[in-house]
């Protein structure tokens, strides 16, 4: 199985680990992440203003290109997923905007792509049962907080990957990997997102809420799908430790990294070395490696 794949900018640079571990895991599970021959930035935010379509041109370009390589497109980054899926819906449902966009990018794209997050590929195409069978290094005894954040879930009407208030797709995967997912209240709350640029205090507070909420119920590890969530959480950890007595930072990694780990991939290839908070002591402690 070959699935057209859009990595997005961040995965080509600072979040390389998310990309390589996902490709490796795909291989182990018997499918191939076929990177699009040509792609550009998705725009990194779905434009909330509706009076013009300028902000949709970049993702539309990605989509029209991808359509030439297949009828599905998969992504890993929550933001890319959100932007591409919502843009695709606009093109599909709104004739007027479709015409303007196609005129601008000089294409004739109709919104017929099926945009899938990697998690959906695992759930719906591969099947979590099959993932479970392929596990070689079960993450036994590891309490993991599955951090969804915002863009993977909202708005439900456009995204619909799972129930927006009590999603379980992430936990279901973790269970298949042998880990113990912990239910923490802030798993769908915001990390602070792009305010990282100019409002560190807010990011520290929001990311702190998320991490404290997870560790409060015993999470030893937080997994995420989004490079920005990962960055904000890790970066905030030292400050949060200072500000909140009793808080102990835990590693924050991408879900594909622990997927690769469970599937028995070479630990050195998973990109854990890029993390600020080292996951190795935890893995050794749990006798996973």
């Amino acid at each position, binding site marked *: 199985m070959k699935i057209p794949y859009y990595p997005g900018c961040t995965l080509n640079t600072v979040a390389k680990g998310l990309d390589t571990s996902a490709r490796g895991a795909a291989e182990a599970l018997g499918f191939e992440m076929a990177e699009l021959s040509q792609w550009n930035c998705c725009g990194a935010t779905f434009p909330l203003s509706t009076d013009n379509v300028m902000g949709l041109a970049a993702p539309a370009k990605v989509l029209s290109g991808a359509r030439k390589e297949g009828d599905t497109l998969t992504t890993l980054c929550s933001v890319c997923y959100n932007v591409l899926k919502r843009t695709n819906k606009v093109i599909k449902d709104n004739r007027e905007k479709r015409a303007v966009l196609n005129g601008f990018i000089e294409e004739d794209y109709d919104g017929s792509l099926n945009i899938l997050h990697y998690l959906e590929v695992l759930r719906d195409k591969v099947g979590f049962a099959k993932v479970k069978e392929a596990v070689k290094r079960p993450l036994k005894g590891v309490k993991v907080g599955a951090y969804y954040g915002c863009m993977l879930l909202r708005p439900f009407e456009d995204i619909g990957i799972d*129930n*927006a*208030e*009590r999603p379980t797709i992430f936990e279901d995967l973790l269970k298949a990997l042998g880990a113990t997912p912990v239910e923490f*209240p802030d798993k769908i709350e915001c990390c602070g997102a792009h305010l990282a640029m100019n409002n560190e205090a807010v990011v520290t507070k929001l990311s702190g809420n998320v991490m404290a909420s997870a560790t*409060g119920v015993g999470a030893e590890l937080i997994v995420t799908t989004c490079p920005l969530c990962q960055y904000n959480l890790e970066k905030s950890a030292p400050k949060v430790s200072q500000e909140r007595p009793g808080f102990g930072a835990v590693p924050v990694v991408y879900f594909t990294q622990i997927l690769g780990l469970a599937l028995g991939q070479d630990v050195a290839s998973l990109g854990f070395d890029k993390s600020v908070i080292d996951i190795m002591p935890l893995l050794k402690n749990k006798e996973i490696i």
Partner: protein
Amino acid sequence: MPRIGVFVCQCGNNIAATVDTKKVAEDMAKVPGVVYTCDYKFMCSSPGQEMLKQAIKEQRLDGIIVSACSPHMHEKTFRKASEAAGINPYRCEVTNIREQCSWVHHDQTKRVGTIKSNDLTRMTIERLKKNSPLTRIKIPVKKKALVIGGGIAGIQAALDIAEGGREVILVEKEPSIGGNMARLSETFPTMDCSQCILTPKMVEAELHENIKLYTYSEVEKVDGYIGNFTVQIRRKSKYVDEDRCTGCGECIEKCPFKTDSQFELGLTKRKVIYTPFPQSVPNVPVIDAPNCPKIQKDKCGACAIVCGPKCIDFKMEDKIVTEEFGAIVVATGYQLMPNERFDEYGYGRIKDVINGMQFERLASSSGPTGGEIRRPSDGKVPKSIVFIQCVGSRDEKKGVSYCSKVCCMYTAKHTMLYSHKVHGGQSYVFYMDIRSGGKRYEEFTRKAIEKDNAMYLRGRVSRVYEKDGKVMVQGADTLSGTQVEIEADMVVLATAIVSRDGADTLAQRLGIGYDKYKFYNEYHPKLKPVETVTAGIYLAGTCMGPMDIPESVAQGSAAASKVLALFSSDEMAREPITSVVNKVTCNACWDCVTACPYSAIERDTIKNRQGEVVRWVAKVNDGVCQGCGVCVAACRSKSIDLKGYTDEQVFAAINAF
């Protein structure tokens, strides 16, 4: 030559402002067959009607046209006046020159309005010339009523009809009558105990000589029409002989199996042979067959062994009984919207998040905690409770757009009950608006705030989550413009009132209308609040939409009075606007039978003298036919006509245009 009189109404200025009524009268005088015309300020007034009667007598008129408002308003008035003056009422026709003419034209020169009024009136004149005199249809009335639903509205309707001396069968789906009201603790604004005021009525209904209770029963099929309904009722097997059971309760005592109690909304368990609550009427237990090992696997049977009168029969089967009724009162009530839809509030996931009805059970002295407020998770007395209003109500996205009407009041009541039962307990209420219109209602909510220390916060809650055994509530107080976080012990959701599951199916069986929320439609929201479009079927209570107990009771009585009025004479008269089949030309294609929405057309035979069937023909049942005219349009051989609106009349009117 006919002798027609035309009366043009000015309706004050309603018509006269844009129609020259005098000129219309003058112009109509020139139409052949018209022998008398006039215009007048208010034709519907007593002097107006007198004028009409006098003209009929003096001018020996045989047909009347009143050009006035919509026939919906005063057709009856003028037909009655015509009849009083000695002509067939169906020889009186009304031309609508108000709603369809003067009100839609603003030409103050009166030119357009006058021309159009002339046209419309002339059309009616030509139509009238082809009118045949009609006589009202008389239908015999079966003086027995069916009441569907044994909640407070249904009980009230049944009692009132029975008191009026008529027989009633009260059908209830559950093993006991009482409905949702039986679940309530106290009632606002008087705080009298719900069961204390309800149970006497339940017993009265059980003992009334004119009322027969069919509990654990459902309406399966409804045929017929006003005065003559034939209804099939499924009497579900109780596995207990109702007539011989003494209600001693020994069987319940000895039953070793338990399951969730629906009556207690899952807050406690009940036995598999059970009565829903201690004061059940009738006090006869039923066996919950799907959960009974004896019925499922032929194991146990303890109840039958201990039963003194030996009235338990594991082989008992459902019975279908057919009964005839003259009228039906539908009082099927409401249910609460499934709270699971509101994931952000954690219902179903967090044990100490309950709904308002569950709180009623916690506060009820006959409830699972004996009236002590204890939270479901660990049985502790909550030190603080957050009440969230409008859960599902006024929520277009996930719920319903309407207001459930009673939640503001019962939430205020809950805070009072809580403060009386748990001293020092703090209640918080998140509300959008306090809707306390009603006698002593506003005073009641103020009392909750001022005397019982309920903290009212104007805002909604965004999410509810668990943290260290507490229920965390994250809301807003829009009056101070701040976010509010409350560490509560329990959360109570004021869940939207919605129609019952299956409300649409029953409506289709009955042939009554319902809205998009599956609440039943009244005939007219103001002037016919308990009638339906189907004659002989009446509504009462929350099957029409959210309402409180006083309203439900009032509607039960109102529906009963309609039934009693109907039953006051042996036969009833109805408008003769029905279809009639020309037997000579009917070729029995049965298109009309398929097309008729009221099942009013039957397959009839024509027999020769030897009694052999010669031909099949369609036949219209005058009792059922509503005069909609669908069959007329469907008939390919043009063999059906609608009395009062025959093809001949309609063409005459068109030709006059």
